[in-house]
């Protein structure tokens, strides 16, 4: 189990005609269960945070034990507040945040956490290497150990050969890598990354995604906030979706999509005999409607667009149908199972964050 919202969120009453977030809680992800004797790596217990009259976080309960978790939501949803709280930079007004049982505000908890902030401010007069080395020294390492760790993390983020230039001359991507390097210095169990892919070119992005995956493979827990949903989808399909200070949904994207009963799944199917297949599909209890669309450019036959509830069950039954009737399916494409589409359903609008 990687992520769990222990208590479902309560639907929020709102203004007429205005969408309010609701909690969609997917069943726990399969995987090795944590040792019962060990406290969770990151645990939010009924956490609320007020900034004056503004409620930034509302009764958040969340547990992370490993793997990669994406944190998505619109601007002002409370993502940064949640990340800073997990990193011990701010305290909850109510509730408790712990890292392996240690209060996140306690300095000892920071030994377990590596934080890559969104802020792009450095000691600009230092070189990248000197900056990372200073951060290592401030972790309490000896000069020799700091040098060794600095070299290791710079190699790790692909900056070993470019780290001797002044930070003020770095590109956005290089600065992101240096931020990541300093977060990795003390080999933390939990990595909190706030917009780590921002400003990175496609090749660099792919390298960083591979790095994140390798870190997760080593058993590290990564909590990544990002607006780059496509990149996040490549990295993990396990997400925490935040809206207006609440956790709107937790789980894998298909799991969350499966629970969105109000929004039927749309699937495009290219098949040899579309009208016969449409008749068959309409017999399935999950199928609400089937549209026969005219052929797309460069296509010869018509296309089916199916609206169905309970996506997982629909997929199973459609599979049986294909085998039973020997259907020749040329293309099968869910149209609204992407993170964008799910966010759109959950948050309203286009789902853009």
């Amino acid at each position, binding site marked *: 189990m990687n992520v769990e919202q222990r208590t479902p969120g309560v639907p929020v009453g709102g203004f007429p005609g205005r969408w309010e977030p609701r909690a969609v809680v997917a069943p726990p992800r399969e995987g090795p269960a944590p040792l019962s004797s060990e406290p969770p790596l990151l645990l939010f217990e009924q956490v609320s945070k007020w900034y004056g009259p503004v409620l930034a976080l509302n009764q958040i309960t969340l547990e992370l034990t490993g793997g990669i978790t994406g944190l998505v939501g619109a601007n002002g949803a409370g993502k*940064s507040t949640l990340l*800073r709280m997990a*990193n011990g*930079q*701010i*305290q909850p007004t109510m509730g408790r945040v712990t890292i392996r049982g240690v209060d996140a505000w306690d*300095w*000892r908890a*920071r*030994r377990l*956490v590596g*934080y890559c*902030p*969104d*802020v792009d*401010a*450095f*000691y600009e007069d230092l070189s990248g290497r000197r900056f990372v080395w*200073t*951060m290592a*020294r*401030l*972790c*309490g*390492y*000896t000069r*020799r*150990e700091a040098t*060794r*760790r600095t*070299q*290791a*993390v710079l*190699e*790790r*983020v*692909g900056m070993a050969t470019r780290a001797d230039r002044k930070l003020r001359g770095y590109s956005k991507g290089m600065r992101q890598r240096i931020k990541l390097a*300093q977060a*990795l*210095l*003390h*080999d933390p169990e939990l990595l909190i990354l706030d917009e780590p892919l921002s400003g990175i070119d496609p090749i660099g992005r792919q*390298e960083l995604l*591979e*790095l994140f995956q*390798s870190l997760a493979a*080593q058993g590290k827990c990564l909590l990544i906030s990002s607006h780059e949903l496509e990149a996040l989808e490549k990295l993990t399909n396990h997400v925490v979706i935040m809206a207006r200070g609440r956790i709107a949904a937790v789980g894998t994207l298909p799991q969350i999509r499966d629970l969105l009963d109000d929004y039927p799944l749309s699937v495009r199917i290219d098949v040899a005999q579309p009208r016969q297949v449409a008749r068959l599909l309409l017999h399935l209890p999950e199928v609400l409607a089937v549209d026969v669309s005219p052929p797309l450019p460069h296509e010869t036959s018509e296309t089916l667009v199916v609206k169905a509830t309970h996506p997982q069950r629909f997929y199973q039954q459609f599979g049986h149908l294909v085998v039973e009737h020997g259907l020749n399916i040329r293309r099968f494409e869910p149209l609204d199972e992407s993170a964008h589409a799910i966010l759109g359903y959950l948050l309203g609008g286009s789902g853009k964050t």
Partner: protein
Amino acid sequence: MTSEVADTVCAPTPAERPSVLRAFAVLVVQSFQRHWRVRQMGWVSLGLLALIVFWVSVVTERNGWNLAERRVRRNTGTYQQEAVRLLPPQRYAAATGDEEFVTPPRPYEIPNPFNPTEEAFRSLMLSIPYAVLQSEQFLYTWSFMTYSRWVIHLVFLGFALPLFTLSYASAAFGTDRESRSLIWIMTRPIPRSGIYLAKFLGTLPWCLLFAMGGFVAIGWAGGPPGREALSHYWPAALTATVAFASLFHLVGAIFRRPVVVGLVYVFFFEAVVAALPGSLKLLSLTFYVRSLMYNEAAEAGYPVELLPAMTEAVSSTTAWSVLVLVMVGINLLGMWLFSRLEYRDDG
């Protein structure tokens, strides 16, 4: 990019465990190094120091601390000239019109040779200023007290020292908050109270360098009375520097605009409150520092009555106790507050 070597290198080894004390010491050094570059307020302070040193040098060069060389009033002669003018030969010369003086003789200065007793007594009385001005001890004492009053108490303690300390102490956190780079320190595994203390210890040498360096420069520019003031007042100046540095470090940790708050404090609180009669001045730091200097001058045998604002000075024991308590208390308060404050400058 990902290397297996790097994976293994990051694994902690028992012999190389991180030490929080080492991190604290590194932060002290890092904080010191971050102040290496003189910033805007530093240049303002240096400019102010240059102005003060220039002014003191000019006054010293003109023998301005010496009573004999000072003018009694505008458009009159110096005290020395006035004293000479009151001697019998000059009075008789003025009365007979043999000699012209800047100031016409007053009625009681006009000699009366027809009443020898009265004239003898008058000549005796009017010769006292001249006799006094012949005493080098008196002239030096007067120079020292004049220098103490105007240069040390008013200019140095009144705004130079607070500005020197403000320019560096408030920047310990202020610079990091302004550049939004405080996050890098706040994410290190160091107790927050330790971060506060380390920043203070890293900044203090700069405050001492500027304030005490300025004190020495002003003292040397003041000639013999300035150098004697250095020898008598340096413990009080040192204590004042640490006390103000503690205060402005706290201001820097709490306020987003520490320089503005500090300037308001220096020019409105310290300048006004310390000069008020009654017990309100007990809230002013400079009052205790001035008391220390006052007592030091009194112990050295100087006529401290020449420092009119300090007639209600507290004893040295009280002043030391208060200043030490303030230094320790402000730092403890700062450590306590800092360990509870949230900084959202990175957002």
